[in-house]
């Protein structure tokens, strides 16, 4: 692997790692001030535990072996991965993908905000990473030693450039399962629960967009033409989705909002994730715009169906990811990628309905596995330790009750107090 591509993947890994703090700010700004730290900590915790779980067991389960459904223990605890032997090529992808593994369950934090016990979250995350994330990753990206796709979905020709199905649809449907187990926040939906700091949300959105270039263009695995195209698409899709969302708001609510812009950006980024390296720039723009419009409506579904997905993980990550993933079936265009264009074409580019079918199948499979397992894990946890905080804790806020801290101490009064 040339030094330029090694650099690109290292930079991309750093960018993807930076996304989890970005997500923490994005989500943290959206909750009420009394729960802001809990949200930040739920996200940061994922960046603490998941890389460890990944290098010990998750990576080997997600990548090694010859089965169509799950890896083996060949790389257990980084066994046999020696940078002095392969110039670091394998380890490079161990940590690049570890960053993906970390942010995926962190996405779920947005759904369970304001009411999940921190200890339940602490246990849930590593379990989910091993039982849900690694298998689905394997189904789509699993390769044998010769580099051929052998996961049962990937082998059929399903496309998922940077994790639309594996990450966003997966986390989004898990979020739905989680809120069904957990129940609504007290007061929802009657009571106003406005974001406590939209500047924090926007800062987070900016970091997410920045990091997403590593997420998508880095997923080319080299500084090549596909990376360049994925970069362009990531830029255009987010931009177009922002506009799509703002247009819906302007027409429907008569006002374009800042939270709408931030939400649109994320929706577009989610939607382009599976498609980034398979479509041309104008298609990337279209995918983003469509996702921006659809997600702007999808976030209202929770009021209709009555599930309290606090920060719209379902409406944005599940719906946006599914939208992008299915649109590959229409827009995939290998002709623009020269020798890298080894994937199937979508309907609009002469490929027929086949790819769309594969995309539907892959997402369906991921949804079923993720929903069922997530539901089961949380039900079991609930039975053993209880996953929901007490009424008093919820009312007073999780920061002072679970973490005995407060997010902000601006005034003179807040410094009042004595050490004990």
């Amino acid at each position, binding site marked *: 692997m040339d030094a330029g591509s090694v650099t690109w993947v290292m930079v991309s890994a750093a960018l993807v790692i930076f996304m989890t703090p970005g997500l923490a700010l994005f989500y943290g700004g959206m909750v009420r001030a009394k729960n802001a730290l809990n949200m930040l900590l739920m996200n940061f915790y994922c960046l603490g535990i998941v890389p460890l779980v990944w290098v010990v067991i998750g990576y080997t389960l997600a990548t090694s072996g010859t089965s169509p459904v799950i890896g083996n223990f060949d790389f257990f605890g980084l066994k046999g991965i020696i940078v002095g032997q392969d110039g670091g090529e394998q380890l490079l992808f161990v940590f690049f993908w570890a960053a993906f593994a970390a942010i995926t369950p962190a996405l779920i934090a947005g759904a369970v905000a304001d009411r999940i016990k921190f200890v339940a979250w602490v246990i849930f995350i590593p379990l989910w990473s091993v039982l849900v994330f690694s298998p689905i990753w394997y189904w789509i990206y699993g390769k044998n030693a010769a580099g051929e796709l052998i996961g049962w979905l990937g082998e059929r020709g399903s496309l998922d450039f940077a994790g639309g199905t594996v990450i966003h649809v997966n986390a989004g449907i898990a979020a739905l399962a989680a809120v069904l187990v957990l129940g609504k926040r007290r007061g929802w939906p009657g009571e106003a629960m406005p974001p406590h700091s939209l500047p924090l949300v926007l800062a987070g959105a900016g970091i997410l967009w920045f990091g997403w270039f590593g997420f998508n263009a880095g997923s080319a695995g080299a500084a090549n033409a596909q990376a360049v195209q994925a970069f362009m698409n990531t830029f255009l899709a987010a931009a177009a989705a922002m506009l799509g969302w703002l247009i819906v708001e302007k027409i429907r609510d008569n006002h374009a909002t800042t939270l709408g812009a931030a939400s649109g950006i994320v929706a577009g980024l989610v939607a382009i994730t599976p498609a980034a390296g398979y479509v041309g720039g104008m298609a990337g723009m279209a995918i983003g715009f469509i996702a921006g419009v659809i997600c702007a409506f999808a976030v209202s579904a929770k009021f209709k169906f009555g599930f309290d997905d606090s920060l719209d993980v379902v409406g944005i990550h599940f719906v946006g990811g599914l939208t992008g993933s299915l649109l590959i079936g229409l827009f995939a265009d290998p002709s623009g990628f020269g020798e890298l264009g080894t994937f199937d074409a979508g309907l609009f580019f002469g490929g027929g309905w086949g790819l769309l079918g594969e995309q539907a199948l892959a997402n369906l499979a991921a949804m079923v596995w993720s929903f069922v397992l997530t539901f089961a894990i949380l039900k079991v946890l609930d039975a053993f330790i209880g996953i929901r905080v007490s009424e008093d804790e919820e009312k007073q806020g999780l920061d*002072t009750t679970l973490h*005995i801290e*407060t997010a902000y101490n601006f005034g003179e*009064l807040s410094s*009042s*107090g*004595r*050490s*004990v």
Partner: protein
Amino acid sequence: MKLVTAIIKPFKLDDVKDALKEAGVVGMTVQEVQGFGRQGGHTETYRGAEYKVDFVPKVKLEAVVEDGDAERVADVIADSARTDKIGDGKVWITDVLRIVRIRTGEVNEDAI
């Protein structure tokens, strides 16, 4: 006129406001305050160092009402703010000598 002042739990504000509206109180002024009382505060820990915070967030509500309404309004507030847990707060009544509505210059009963 009388000024009814109440110190209540923040999350009860919406209930109290609705009860007051129903009781015919059309204006009031509220603000965030910090209370010290039997309820006690909480501790916070930063890098292992523990601090005692004695004050608890409360909301202060003030409404100027006609003389004859004061006790009733105080009772409405007390009833709607009650949770039966320590720290529910107080309501007190003081005398107002004169009140003016700034916009119109109306005074006393007309200004409330």
